[in-house]
């Protein structure tokens, strides 16, 4: 457990907390990008170079932009997004949500900390970072994972079409 891991973990978690609690939606999105960038740092720290960089490319470069556009497209929401704790029902919902999340975390943490396979200092734990050169990834992708790749292509196309249909105005404007 290195220092860099700690810093990155803190960055990620801090970003995530900020993303979930800040008032302004745009701030939330910016905090989310911090969290995702931190996560990318964690991947890099773990030796997964390609995944880490892909994470930045896709999440920071594209998904964040997408969310920002969505926020700007639905501006009225910005005011409504505040956590209005004055109302009783609202407050209880808030408390309920937090409690559920805390409970989930408790269970997960308990499992992690008490799992015998994880706590045992197995030989695998200390191994040097596995090699994951780009070529290996490419080879693996094009040999063993060709089918998932094609499925992924199909899914991306479907997502494109679906999202466009949803986001497109119902009545095309009379140009």
């Amino acid at each position, binding site marked *: 457990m290195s220092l860099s891991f700690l810093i990155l973990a803190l960055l990620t978690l801090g970003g995530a907390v900020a993303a979930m609690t800040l008032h302004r939606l745009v701030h939330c999105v910016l905090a989310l990008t911090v969290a995702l960038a931190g*996560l990318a740092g964690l991947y890099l720290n773990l030796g997964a170079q390609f995944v880490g960089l892909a994470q930045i490319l896709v999440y920071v470069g594209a998904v964040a932009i997408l969310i920002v556009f969505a926020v700007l497209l639905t501006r009225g929401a910005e005011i409504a997004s505040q*956590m209005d704790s004055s109302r009783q029902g609202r407050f209880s919902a808030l408390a309920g949500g937090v409690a559920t999340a805390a409970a989930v*975390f408790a269970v997960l943490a308990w499992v992690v900390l008490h799992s015998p396979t994880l706590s045992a200092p197995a030989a695998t734990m200390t*191994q040097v970072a596995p*090699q994951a050169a780009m070529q290996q990834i490419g080879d693996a992708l094009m040999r063993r994972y060709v089918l998932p790749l094609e499925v992924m292509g199909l899914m991306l196309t479907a*997502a494109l079409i679906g999202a466009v249909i949803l986001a497109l105005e119902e009545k095309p404007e009379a140009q």
Partner: protein
Amino acid sequence: MTPLTGCLLVSSLLFAIGLGGALTRRSAILVLIGIELMLNAANLNFIAFWRYGPHSEALTGMLFVIFSIAVAAAEAAVGLALIIAIYRHTKTTDVQEMDELRG
């Protein structure tokens, strides 16, 4: 504490934060952000297990994360499109209000 445990703890905390946000925030976009966070928490697990797991040369965890990123991105696109589509009708992105205005 082993590095793997650390990763898993961070991941579960991230998951919990995402979950808490998704449950408590009223803006649909924020709910989506929460879900994204949960997905990413899972991804961290995959990478951690790939890194410290026994068959790292197989790259399964890594490729799985790549696919997962793709799926999450697609999900975000469709999800946000959905929010926009609903917004167009209800003029709100508040999940509760959406619920009330339904029908």
